[in-house]
């Protein structure tokens, strides 16, 4: 792992949030795989259980650099089982992703769930997180470029259709958060994204998106 790798894989999120009773709305700008803008809605069913959804679309300058159109719709929930200073959270999430780029067009589904276990110091939290991400299938329309790679190989080009993605990622890492005054919250997650159920080699050491490393830095400003 080099400094270059770490910079390359850092997801930056800047969030502006506002609370209205049991609801909260947030807008965010981030580098979640592409420069994007997101709109998020959360509803607190009770003190512990929250559900929500995030819609995320790329900003214009992502276009024509291998990533023409992309987006994500995530439905998530959060259960906070805080007891005194110890806390634990469960964060299941379902994401629909679409991506139009040089390789072709994708519509994929990703199922994931993180579990956090940590200690709340009051103005700061430090915890351990682990979770699974499963990508059960995708719709894929191979682009002309992918088709062209088969020319002259004596092999048939791939048809459009449903393709199975057997990827199961296991996330494990540390999570921490700070309250900075009445309005600012900083959060940072970092760790490894591994493939626990295959005997394939782990591809690491280069920022081509093949890294097992992940890191997420978020800065939240609450209007209230």
């Amino acid at each position, binding site marked *: 792992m*080099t*400094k*270059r790798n770490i*910079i*390359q894989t850092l*997801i930056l999120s800047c969030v502006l949030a506002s609370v209205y009773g049991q609801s909260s709305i947030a807008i965010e700008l981030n*580098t*979640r*795989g*592409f*420069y994007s803008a997101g709109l998020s809605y959360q509803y607190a069913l009770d003190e512990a259980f929250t*559900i929500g959804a995030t819609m995320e679309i790329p900003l214009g*300058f*992502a276009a*024509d*650099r*291998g*990533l023409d159109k*992309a987006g994500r719709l995530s*439905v998530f*929930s959060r259960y906070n089982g805080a007891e005194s200073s110890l806390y634990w959270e469960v964060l299941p999430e*379902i994401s629909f992703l679409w*991506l139009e*780029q*040089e*390789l072709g067009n994708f519509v*994929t589904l*990703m199922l994931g769930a993180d579990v956090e276990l940590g200690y709340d110091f009051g103005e700061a939290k430090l915890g351990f997180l682990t979770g699974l*991400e499963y*990508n*059960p*299938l995708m719709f894929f329309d191979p682009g002309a*470029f*992918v088709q*062209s*790679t*088969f020319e*002259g*190989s*004596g*092999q048939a080009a*791939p048809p459009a*259709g*449903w*393709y*199975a*993605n*057997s*990827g199961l*990622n296991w996330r494990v890492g540390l999570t921490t958060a700070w309250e900075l005054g009445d309005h600012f919250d900083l959060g940072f997650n970092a760790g490894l994204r591994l*493939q626990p159920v295959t005997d*394939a*080699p782990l*591809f690491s*050491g*280069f*920022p*081509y*998106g*093949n890294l097992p490393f992940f890191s997420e830095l978020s800065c939240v400003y609450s209007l209230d």
Partner: protein
Amino acid sequence: MGNKKTFWCLNLFLTLTLFGCANILELDRLVPQTVKENSGLPSLEIEVFDQRALIHYRAYGFTPGDTSGQTITFLMHGSLSDMKGYLDIAPQLTADTPVFMWDLRGNGLSERVPAKELSFRWMCEEIESVRRLVAPNSKIILLGYSWSGIFASLYAAQHPENLEGLILIEPPGLKGEYQDIAGSALNLLGSGYLGMAYLSEFLSPIDHEMIDFRSLAILEAGVRDFFVDIDNRPTMPVWRVGGLAVSVWESEVISGMGYEYDYTHGLGTFPHPVLFLATDHSPIGYDFQQRTNTNEFQDPRLVKIPNAGHRLIVEQPEAVTQALQDYIQEVIHD
């Protein structure tokens, strides 16, 4: 609690519906098979440090292993590439020497090998393994494009007695301090690379097929400033890129945020003229080669290919072919 049940039931229903509708294909069909899986492809078995591997090859003007002592020109492609881009150029170089080219192990349609067998030491030994098999009684003119320029230079330093000429097409800096002059070829936080990070969330690199497929996006992404017109990038003909290979190669030269290496030992005594082809639209183009790599050889011949970037073999194939023909003719008839 009722809300929770509804939420999870909806999720389960949606997932099962998607599974039920799917006639699922395997992702490994998204890249062509290698010679290991497809015996109909032309292949040779080489032995590199006691490890055997099948390579995909083309030979022009001779039968591999039967050279009658004549000089052979070897063509080696660069990273994220294979020999497909040379299919038009190679036959035009046979006026003075037969030509042999192959997909490097771990690249193109050659067999995939573990990461440790893709190190520079192994890549250099691969050249010698191919020579022993294909042209055991001949000298060779060795062409290395981009990354292979490093491998070819290492080979030239170790086995000058086997070479009659050396051609380097825009090699990276042969010393870390040279590469620092070019700056980072990686465009950190460029949207193309971020796109790769995005892919990593749902295209897990569980095998070579997947990492090769995903690496294709880099080839077309225009992330690197290697083109005359980045908005009208020439497509690089390729069958299949070697994703793991480029990962290993880049890792071998990167240290922190910089470069610390020196592959110039022994180059100063290389006894033959060395042809450098370099362009005017590449960070490791003509000016870079003039300031750096050419100074490591006794007799460098630096030729500028104008109006081209790092993909000069597809942007200016005629100029490249002419320069190669001129050089081969010179060293053969000297």
